[in-house]
């Protein structure tokens, strides 16, 4: 049994207390440990993704207890891809946090950051629904700390809303888990996949309620309208590197929907048929529309970017709610794009903030480094709005193509195309007011000269933008890989067999030979 799978969870879990206990007053040690740890995570995640890329499903039984009695971690193509994406995003965001000295403006940034990574990695790797809940809580409690980093009343108020909303979400999650356990007697995903099929078709009330509750919980995480209200304030008020890392958190919800609703409640399951088409698709269309309209209506740059995240999650959800192989392929491609683009945009917001009085979309005098910042904003905005030549355009094309044969093609095409136009107008207006018009404003001679953001900040944003370019150039191999992922998702039998048939303690109560091999 390979122990590499658990490393993305264990490594941050050890680094965080080390940073708190041993390096509490030494920011240099904190930074080096944190950066080295996240870089090691990137390497490990790349190794895991490479290992899973040929379609093998790797299982890790905690304490060698056999599923469904023990908790298992499962590394397949989808989970390793998400782990790799998280690690790469976290690396560049951490570079930015160090470069912009955000980590020095409050206590315990690096420790909370590591705990946050631990929760996200665990959520992607676990093969057990209750364990998914626990990792959700780990990532949430770390995010509460990160969200109010540096404090301030406005940020604390947004933090209260964020925490309460997520607390209610967690309660709903527990109700869903209780309902599932009462109906099936298990919470292991692979075991559930088999048992849900066996439920008597005339007695599906409980499991249908559970499926809807679970979808609502994941929709809260993914900020699907009408459950998106927590997102704009929290993302706008959170410190920039934290908001950039939060770009992956909405994707945790998307990942959970993909995982649970392809394996446990597949589209052809009669009891939950219509859940995606009738409920998720309209909600996703409205999310996209509201996100992009909100983008146009925003009066501050940080809210504009937050609404663009809602819009892009709507786009992802439209593609997921098709629940076809092409739809999931396109959704995964778009998830990677949207994570990188949203991360870059939040960091650029901070670059703008660091040299201006506020983030209102008004013309203010130009500042040091504004040309480079403007160029980066231009590029990230093109990516986010989905204009050619960057990956947003490729992703949108894939989603349009995937929805072409469905019954709701008219709705999907209309909403996507019109909302894209609105997004282009919104980003264009913001960019021209912030960067272009500022050239006509005279510099106040008495004003204090602001230093340009540090080169490391630009390296971090540039790294994310370079990844976006690579994601565009390598669109062919990437879509081939995401279609391999969706093929694996729609044929979950090897996954289920690996989880349930791997021997471990308790798998056969009459043989004790397994216990000798535990270590």
């Amino acid at each position, binding site marked *: 049994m390979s122990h590499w799978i658990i490393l993305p969870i264990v490594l941050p879990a050890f680094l965080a207390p080390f940073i708190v206990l041993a390096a509490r007053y030494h920011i240099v040690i904190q930074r080096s440990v944190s950066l080295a740890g996240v870089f090691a995570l990137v390497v490990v995640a790349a190794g895991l993704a490479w290992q899973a890329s040929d379609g093998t499903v790797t299982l890790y039984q905690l304490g060698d207890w056999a599923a469904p009695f023990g908790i298992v971690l499962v590394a397949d193509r989808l989970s390793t891809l998400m782990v790799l994406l998280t690690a790469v995003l976290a690396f560049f965001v951490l570079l930015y946090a160090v470069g912009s000295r955000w980590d020095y403006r409050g206590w315990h940034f690096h420790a909370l950051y590591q705990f946050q990574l631990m929760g996200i990695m665990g959520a992607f790797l676990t093969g057990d629904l*209750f364990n998914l809940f626990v990792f959700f809580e780990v990532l949430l409690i770390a995010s509460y700390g990160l969200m109010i980093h540096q*404090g301030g009343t406005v940020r604390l108020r947004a933090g*209260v809303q964020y925490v309460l909303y997520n*607390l209610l979400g*967690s*309660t709903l999650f*527990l109700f869903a*888990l*209780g*309902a599932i356990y009462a109906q099936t007697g298990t919470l292991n995903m692979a075991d559930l996949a088999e048992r849900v099929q066996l439920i008597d078709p005339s007695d599906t009330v409980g499991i249908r309620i559970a499926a809807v509750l679970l979808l609502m919980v994941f929709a809260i995480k993914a900020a699907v309208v009408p459950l998106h209200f927590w997102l704009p304030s929290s993302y706008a008020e959170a410190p920039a590197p934290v908001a950039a890392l939060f770009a992956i958190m909405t994707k945790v919800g998307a990942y959970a929907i993909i995982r649970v609703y392809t394996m446990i409640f597949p589209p052809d399951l009669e009891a939950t048929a219509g859940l995606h088409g009738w409920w998720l698709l309209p909600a996703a269309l409205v999310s996209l529309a509201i996100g992009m309209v909100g983008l146009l209506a925003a009066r501050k740059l940080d809210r504009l970017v937050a609404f663009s995240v809602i819009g892009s999650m709507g786009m992802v959800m439209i593609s997921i709610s098709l629940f076809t192989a092409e739809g999931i392929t396109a959704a995964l491609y778009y998830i990677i794009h949207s994570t990188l683009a949203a991360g870059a945009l939040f960091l650029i917001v901070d670059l703008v903030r660091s040299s201006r009085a506020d983030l209102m979309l008004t013309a203010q005098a130009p500042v040091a480094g504004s040309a480079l910042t403007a160029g980066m904003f231009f590029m990230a905005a093109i990516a986010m709005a989905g204009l050619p030549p960057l990956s947003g355009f490729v992703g949108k094309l894939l989603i349009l193509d995937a929805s072409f044969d469905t019954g709701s093609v008219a709705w999907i095409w209309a909403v996507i195309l019109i909302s894209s136009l609105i997004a282009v107008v919104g980003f264009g207006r913001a960019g021209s007011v912030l960067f272009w018009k500022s050239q006509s404003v005279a510099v106040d001679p008495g004003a204090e000269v602001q230093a340009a953001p540090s080169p490391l900040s630009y390296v971090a944003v540039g790294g994310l933008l370079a990844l976006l370019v690579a994601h565009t150039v390598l669109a062919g191999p990437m879509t081939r890989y995401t279609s391999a992922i969706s093929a694996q998702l729609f044929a979950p039998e090897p996954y289920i067999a690996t989880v349930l048939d791997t021997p471990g303690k308790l798998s056969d109560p009459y043989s004790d030979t397994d216990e000798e091999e535990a270590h």
Partner: protein
Amino acid sequence: MEFLVASAIGVLTAGGIYLVLRLRTFPVIMGVSLLTYAVNVFLFASGRLTVGAPPILSDGAVAYTDPLPQALVLTAIVISFGMTAVVVMIALGAYLGGDDDHVDDDTKAPAAEDAS
């Protein structure tokens, strides 16, 4: 007994939702606590209600109760307790800083949120 437990969960949930909708931090936190109590009882009942039966193997026992929901409830209690403590601290910070304990955005001054 099933009726009693189900009613208790229902009443706790209803009370919790009512308090959450008050949108002032103290009632909201009380409401969230009530909701977590309700969900704890719900989780506990998801393994079916059994009276006086041991959860682990023991000599002479004729019936057992499901031990897993008990473990789940224990985890849920710890987590919700910790989360409530966190939200109390953050809410206290926001209240002391802003002298206002409304949870939603300020309705009196719609521009306030944009003028941070």
